[in-house]
């Protein structure tokens, strides 16, 4: 057989990817349980031990492990190059799991001593090991695309976010910073949330949406514009908080960032309208919901930056903004895409060898639709209720939403387990 770029040959071992997914799925359950137990206390200023603990449990426990696993699958296939080393991510995962668990626990208890700094250091080593391995992988690729530019930019923002996070952890243990550390914390949060997750999702979305919806949108200028805007927004935000707090840098950051989001959403709707596959599945509906949360987060950011708000409303909308951005936008994409990626991986490794020998189900048939639908409604009902409960200071609504989100995490874990167990 002669082939012209069989991208699937570059894919890594199944267990490397599944180990990361498993950690993240457990993390989702643990995060949503912690949120349920503390739902009544999710209010006030964001700089509180258990709110910080919840945010880091969400990011480090749920969102990041799954993202890292997906990157190890996606980069080799999209960029047609094998992962530089498969040992490094295994070692990094071990360090990451220990570091993250210890870090979150100590942040939650506000135990900010040497052990806290050591945990943070473990996380730094693990994350930089991941980044170095993936960056070297990318360098070995000859594929040059807009998605590649997004991925590189996302990696840069993650590297900066991690470094800043470590500096902040040091400061919490042994105060040394001359400037208000809350300003740096905002920069850290946006580098990680908007810079890393945001750019990665945007860049990869162009490829995945085209693949799953069977749509080809040749014009890429909205994607280029979005990439520029997000980076300019983050630089402006950092300069505002670090160098010139009284300047208009925040306004520039918010307006330019919103323009970037608008350009991205515009490109997504063009891809959607050009799609061949008319019937959309539940994983796509998770992704569509995520884009709605992205728009809402953008609107909240504008309101927070440009509108005169009293302190109480400012605090509530800040928390709502963070919740809509992380569990809402990022979480929905991750859950939705895992409903595509995991079935495909199990199909590829277990069912594909039987293609041509006997009838095999399609990847989408490895999980029945009803449990997916239940999970979708529980998750998005929960996210909306929690966000509204935070914004409107309604504890009962937060509690109900948290119960729904926790239930959705259990159904999600059950769904992923059911897919994993499928055999020919």
């Amino acid at each position, binding site marked *: 057989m002669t082939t012209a770029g*069989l991208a699937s040959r570059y894919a890594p071992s199944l267990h490397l990817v599944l180990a990361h997914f498993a950690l993240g799925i457990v993390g989702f359950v643990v995060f949503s349980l912690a949120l349920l137990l503390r739902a009544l206390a999710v209010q006030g200023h964001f700089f509180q031990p258990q709110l910080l603990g919840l945010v880091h449990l969400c990011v480090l426990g749920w969102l990041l492990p799954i993202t890292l696993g997906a990157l190890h699958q996606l980069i080799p296939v999209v960029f047609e190059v094998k992962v530089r080393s498969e040992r490094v991510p295994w070692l990094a995962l071990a360090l990451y799991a220990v570091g993250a668990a210890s870090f979150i626990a100590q942040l939650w208890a506000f135990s900010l001593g040497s052990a806290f700094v050591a945990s943070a250091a473990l996380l730094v080593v693990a994350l930089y090991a991941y980044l170095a391995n993936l960056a070297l992988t990318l360098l070995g690729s000859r594929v040059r695309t807009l998605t590649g530019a997004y991925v590189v930019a996302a990696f840069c923002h993650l590297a900066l976010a991690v470094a800043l996070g470590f500096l902040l952890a040091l400061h919490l243990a042994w105060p040394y910073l001359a400037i208000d550390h809350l300003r740096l914390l905002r920069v850290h949060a946006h580098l990680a949330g908007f810079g890393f997750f945001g750019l990665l999702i945007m860049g990869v979305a162009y490829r995945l949406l085209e693949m799953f919806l069977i749509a080809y949108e040749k014009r890429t200028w909205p994607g280029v514009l979005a990439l520029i805007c997000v980076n300019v927004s983050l630089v402006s935000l950092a300069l505002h908080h670090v160098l010139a707090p009284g300047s208009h840098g925040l306004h520039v950051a918010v307006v330019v960032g919103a323009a970037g989001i608008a350009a991205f959403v515009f490109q997504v709707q063009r891809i959607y309208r050009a799609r061949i596959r008319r019937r959309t599945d539940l994983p796509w509906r998770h992704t569509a919901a995520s884009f709605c949360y992205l728009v809402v987060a953008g609107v909240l950011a504008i309101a927070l930056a440009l509108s005169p708000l009293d302190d109480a409303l400012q605090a509530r909308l800040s928390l709502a903004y963070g919740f809509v951005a992380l569990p809402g936008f990022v979480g929905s994409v991750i859950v939705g895409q895992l409903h595509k990626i995991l079935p495909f991986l199990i199909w590829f490794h277990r069912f594909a060898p039987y293609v041509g020998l006997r009838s095999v189900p399609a990847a989408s048939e490895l999980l029945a639709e009803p449990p997916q639908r239940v999970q979708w409604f529980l998750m998005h009902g929960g996210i909306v209720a929690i966000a509204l409960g935070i914004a409107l200071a309604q504890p009962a609504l937060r509690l109900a939403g948290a119960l729904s989100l926790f239930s959705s995490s259990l159904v999600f874990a059950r769904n992923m387990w059911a897919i994993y167990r499928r055999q020919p």
Partner: protein
Amino acid sequence: MTNQALEELARAALREVPDPETGINIVDLGLVYEVKVDAQTGAVFVTITFTSPACPAGDAIAGGIERRLQREEAIKTVDLTVTFEPRWSPERISPEGRASLGMDD
């Protein structure tokens, strides 16, 4: 067996190889560009493409084609070529494929 009969046999067999994402067979999806045969030697030459160069299921589809064709007694050898020239386009989808994708809904 004549060349025509062997080609028909091969094309019918290819209809049993699905695209894992859509579940539609690769013939109706328009992925099969060319089928040439030599009935005397039992050789089948198939040229296919994928919807995207980065299609993660490429290996699976290619392997499925070879396995399915080799189940036919009349087919002795299978030569499979994957190409992206020209790029696949939706116009190649058959009416049955279009119906499965809901393209005309």
